[in-house]
């Protein structure tokens, strides 16, 4: 048989970090070199495969933040450091980092949507001089759902980070309210110079994009990332298709001018 792209390879779990009750971050030993925003197919033989976006990567490792939502992810959560899982990929198109150069970059991430952009945030945080300004707006359901607490704290020392929750609790002293509320009050003297990344649940993305458009940010300056059912990751199985577009091939990251035309 010819080279088999469905064949996954075995990777070792270097570190597991519990983010929330249902979100764990796995650091894996791997030599793959993904682009920021790409995904991999993670599998456990005999259990199944699922697409997971790479939340960060470096020399010899990649990191994924996995929510416990189904058969495969439930079992993944039972693994321990030193155990193995299987991956194939990376797949899809990542964020066009070059495009953000010398721009005011605003990243708006809702919930688990923060995972696929984490490496983008890190990238620019390490190279703050590449962009004019960096803003991160991130919203979660409740304080218990906040992801990457350590990173958020570190980032907020270096650039402008807004964390908000839909519903606070007695210990929460931060922002409360939807992300859109914080977008609304932003002020862009020169909206043409603003580049925006929006990632999150469908409703959050829809309304957040609308707010940026209202502020005068041109459509082509908005990048979004889609979450769709994926199976093969290779443009064959059909599950991810929207109109004539395969999310696994042309996405998950899309320019908004394209994304707005995609109707499921």
């Amino acid at each position, binding site marked *: 048989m010819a080279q088999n792209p469905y064949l996954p390879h075995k990777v070792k779990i270097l570190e597991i970090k519990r983010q929330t009750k249902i979100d764990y971050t796995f650091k894996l030993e791997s030599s793959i070199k993904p682009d920021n925003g790409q995904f991999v197919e993670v599998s456990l033989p005999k259990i199944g*495969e699922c697409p997971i976006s790479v939340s960060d990567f470096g020399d010899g490792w990649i990191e994924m933040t996995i929510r416990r939502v189904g058969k495969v992810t439930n079992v993944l959560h039972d693994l321990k450091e030193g155990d193995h899982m299987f991956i194939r990929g990376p797949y899809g198109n990542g964020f066009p980092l070059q495009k953000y150069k010398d721009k005011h970059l605003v990243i708006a991430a809702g919930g688990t949507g923060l995972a696929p952009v984490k490496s983008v945030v890190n990238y620019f945080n390490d190279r703050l001089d590449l962009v004019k300004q960096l803003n991160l707006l991130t919203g979660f359901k409740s304080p218990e759902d906040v992801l990457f607490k350590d990173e958020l704290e570190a980032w907020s020392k270096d650039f402008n980070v807004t964390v908000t929750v839909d519903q606070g609790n007695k210990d929460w002293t931060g922002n409360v309210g939807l992300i859109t509320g914080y977008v609304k009050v932003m002020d862009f003297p020169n909206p043409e110079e603003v580049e925006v990344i929006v990632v999150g649940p469908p409703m959050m993305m829809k309304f957040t994009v609308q707010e940026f458009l209202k502020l005068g940010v041109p459509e082509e300056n908005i990048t979004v990332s889609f979450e769709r059912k994926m199976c093969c990751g290779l443009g064959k199985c*059909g599950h991810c298709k929207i109109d004539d577009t395969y999310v696994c091939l042309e996405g998950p990251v899309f320019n908004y001018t394209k994304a707005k035309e995609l109707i*499921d």
Partner: protein
Amino acid sequence: MGYQMSTVEFNNVISKLLLDYRILAPVCLEGKGTFSGTDLVTYGDIERIQDVVFDRKTVYSAKEAVFPPSETMFYFTEEEFKQPSVDQKGILVFARPCDINAFKRLDAIYLESGPYPDPYYLQLREKLKFVLMECDHGFKNCFCASMGTNETSDFSLLVRSEGDQIFCLINDTGFEDLISESLASNSIRKVDLQPGFVQRNKTRLQIPDKLDNSLFSHPLWQEYASRCTGCGRCNFSCPTCSCFTMQDLFYRDNPSCGERRRVWASCMIEGYTEMAGGQEVRKTQGERMRFKVMHKFSDFKKRFGFHMCVGCGRCDDVCPEYISLPRCVQKLQEIKNGGVR
């Protein structure tokens, strides 16, 4: 070169072919129809020409020869992935022009789409050769002429059955020896033979050239929401539907071993777009019908330059709710023409 011979003589040819090929053709499985007292005409292995059903359309298509409904991708033994081995024999498939043209669609998905050719498809596809079956008048619901898939030159043999005589045209020099070996000793006659193709069907379609998002909210789709039960028959019988889903399992008698396989998927069946966690993007049968129609008559063409549907009419033949895909396309055309509201 064309030849005429008796079925007995042609069966000798088949016997020879069977040494190197698995031969698949439309066969009639008695009593295997859905309803009691009905037969199932479908693809199956044949050993003699009398097994081949020439005068009826199959319920399922020839795609199964290279894209089986359920296919093992890997066997897992402890920590190892093992790919199943394949039969070394070639595959010879009796097929009509629409079905032969359908392979071009499958090729587009499996060999051209994405960064890699699909190795499972490829290894079977490379062995595949066609025996052309002609259609006298076409069948009910066929609309190949409208799709431009009523003719083909991609066949190794043409086989025509008339009474106890078989007419065979060899269109692939690789097969020439087969007959010439028999020629000397037998009463095989050389004849002039040209493939005949249907030029008109009862069902005729004009495919609207610009099917776009503006039709997505048309009330037309709501009708299907109430009619379609989401059974998936239209996809499973379609020679061009290529979607699949992967599944992993472990053997109950030996849980440390198992397999990963892929099975046919249907965009009409609930769950096709469901993500882990339960969200599903197309929830109604109306949306699903729209998606299917768009794939067959618009989306695919945007990517590959020709329509996906080959007009075999099987989806219409098999729908238990009497939903006709060609009729739906006609309605879209009428809407485009301003006919239907």
